[in-house]
């Protein structure tokens, strides 16, 4: 059992949660993830580290309330426990010798962009961060990012309610055009990562994307998370989650992410009957 010791609501549907897990905290590195199972009947879901403390023995993750499992998770409070927390899983993000790098985070992906930007800055990179959300209410971790030694932090919203109105690819393209980038890292919705990779491709800026395919075990056993990278099948959990954004087949990734959408609606409907918060 893993005791919940921290919970913070970051926006209407986005929560940050911290659990006691000293062994995992001692090994966690930016870009890696956890598999979490709430209870006996729960599914195993992958959640990327947003923060951790080896000294204090905790790890944190951020999730958006979208389906039954994340809804149940959002109802747990400090003092409750999660049945299973497994990690750290996946290959850590490459942060060394990057030079000038843009870290792009969209939506809940900012939860991953934050520790990645921090690790890159600690490793000596000159890091610019671009974070995007539909509107100001959905922006997360702005204060935490401001506390990092960044070259700059650019905020983009679809409706202009915070920062620049537009898409994260706009400032990314400007930085590419100005020749300011040696590398880029993007994490967020698959469609956002696809367009970030498309933006940097013409400028030949190496771009890493942190993918979020469906997983079951998270250890390479099932192959649910397979993605095509440069025409080869890779497993998101053990070969990734980071891949060369210019080689990923995003259309396939997006199609595979939708495989259970009908079934998930069924589970959500069943769950909503017993839940006050309206799924």
């Amino acid at each position, binding site marked *: 059992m893993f005791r919940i010791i921290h919970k913070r609501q970051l926006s209407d549907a986005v929560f940050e949660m911290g659990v006691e897990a000293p062994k995992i905290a001692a090994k966690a590195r930016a870009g890696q993830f956890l598999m979490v199972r709430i209870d006996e*009947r*729960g*599914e*195993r879901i992958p959640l990327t580290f947003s923060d951790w403390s080896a000294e204090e023995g905790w790890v944190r993750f951020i999730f958006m309330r979208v389906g039954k499992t994340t809804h149940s998770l959002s109802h747990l409070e400090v003092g409750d426990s999660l049945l299973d927390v*497994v990690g750290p*899983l996946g290959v850590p993000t490459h942060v060394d010798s990057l030079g000038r790098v843009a870290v792009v985070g969209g939506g809940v992906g900012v939860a991953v962009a934050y520790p990645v930007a921090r690790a890159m800055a600690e490793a000596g990179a000159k890091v610019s961060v671009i974070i995007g959300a539909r509107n100001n209410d959905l922006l997360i971790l702005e204060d935490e990012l401001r506390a990092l030694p960044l070259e700059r932090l650019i905020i983009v919203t679809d409706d202009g309610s915070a920062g620049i109105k537009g898409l994260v690819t706009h400032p990314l393209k400007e930085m590419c055009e100005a020749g300011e980038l040696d590398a880029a890292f993007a994490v967020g919705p698959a469609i956002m990562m696809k367009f970030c990779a498309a933006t940097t491709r013409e400028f030949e800026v190496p771009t890493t994307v942190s993918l979020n395919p469906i997983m079951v075990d998270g250890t*390479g*056993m099932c192959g649910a998370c397979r993605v095509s990278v440069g025409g080869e099948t890779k497993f998101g959990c053990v070969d990734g989650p980071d891949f060369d954004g210019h080689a990923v087949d995003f259309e396939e990734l997006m199609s595979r992410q*939708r495989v259970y959408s009908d079934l998930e609606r069924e*589970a959500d409907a069943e769950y909503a009957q017993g839940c006050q918060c309206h799924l």
Partner: protein
Amino acid sequence: MPPLDDTARSGSAPAERPRHKPTRGPRMPMPERDAKERASIFDEVGYGYSSEMALEEAMRCLQCKNPTCQTGCPVNIDIRGFIGAIIEGDHPRGVAVIKDRNALPAVCGRVCPQESQCESACVLAKTGSPIAIGRLERFLGDSDLACELERRCVPAKAPASGFRCAIVGSGPAGLACAGELAQLGHAATIFESLHAPGGVLSYGIPEFRLPKDILSAEIETLSALGVEIVTDTVVGQLVTIPELLSEEGFDAVFIGSGAGLPVFLGVPGENLNGVYSANEFLTRVNLMRAYEFPKADTPVWRGRKVAVVGGGNVAMDSARTALRLGAEEVFLIYRRTEEEMPARKEEVHHARDEGVEFKMLCSPVEIVGRDGFVTGVVASRMELTDPDESGRRAPVCVMDSEFTIDCDTVISAVGTRANALMANGAPDLELTNRGYVVADELGSTSMSGVFAGGDIVTGAATVILAMGAGKTAAQAMDRWLRESR
């Protein structure tokens, strides 16, 4: 008929015991659920023998002076001895005889390929009716598990040695190794990456063939020996093998992590939605209980027409699971013929009885789909060549013989390979170029104090071979610990 040799039997019997007179007759069939009924439920197919049936079957045993059955057993169980115990009505002794060699009789009685091991070596095999050794083993295993934990057969333990051993993986190899180490007096801690112990016994083999209650009871008995199981721990990620030997203070390590990485078909379309590895399909259903969805949270795609590719036990398990999830048609695509199928014969018969349609001598060349979802498998007809020097007949494609099988789900059950995750952070551990651990026949690896056995050394094989390797390695570890530490 060979005379009964009492003195050779384990636990030398009193002289006044009546001579065993074998009965003649066919094998005692095991009662099983009706094929129609069972094809839609996950309950176990075979009910197992009653005491009367077990006795009647045991009475057929010749109690040979030279028991060839035992030589057919990969872990050398004294089969004549345990059948003799059934004949005498001393079931606890029968259990003890098996447990001397095999810690999981109720599991192995169900999943071992007896027809190609002990039963094929039985003298009566020539008559076509070998003793049903597997069913008798299951009978004894189950009779032990039916007892309260304190009354079950737990082998005697040697005095505590003070040595601590770490075991990577709680599948057949790891469980057998840990059980043996505990008996030899060492503290044994198993690290399991999933949330439940058992490895392939838990995520792979379905409820209808190996009920989870049986598995957990067997594991509970091992725990009574003092074996500790720590779940949710991925060795190579959370802790490395060198760290187990240093920071964590273990004196020796056994790697029994299995061959867990699924192999896909390598044909176009294999990443379409509706294409599963058997590992994923079975894990969703067995470990995550997707058959109870939405009461359990993990979904599984319930295909109407399901094509399973492969001819082993995993293929049979997948096909029969698909039927139980409500598939209208399940096809089994195999590139050789039923004759060459590596699956247990009983599973093949069960699959056929339940309605799985066998499409032999064909091999998928492409998976086709629409809007990202599978709509069919294009397969090529195959034919078998004349036997080569080893007697093996190779399947070759028949030119221009492609045809399409309409289906909405494809399950690839064509094998698994090594998952080298556990070797992260252990650069001194020698692996083959395919990621398997290099180990000698006793399990020693390139790292001092690190042993390995089971599928991670040999490639995918059987439960009993993995258990045998785990046990052999435990004995080698015992010698190494006592001699070099």
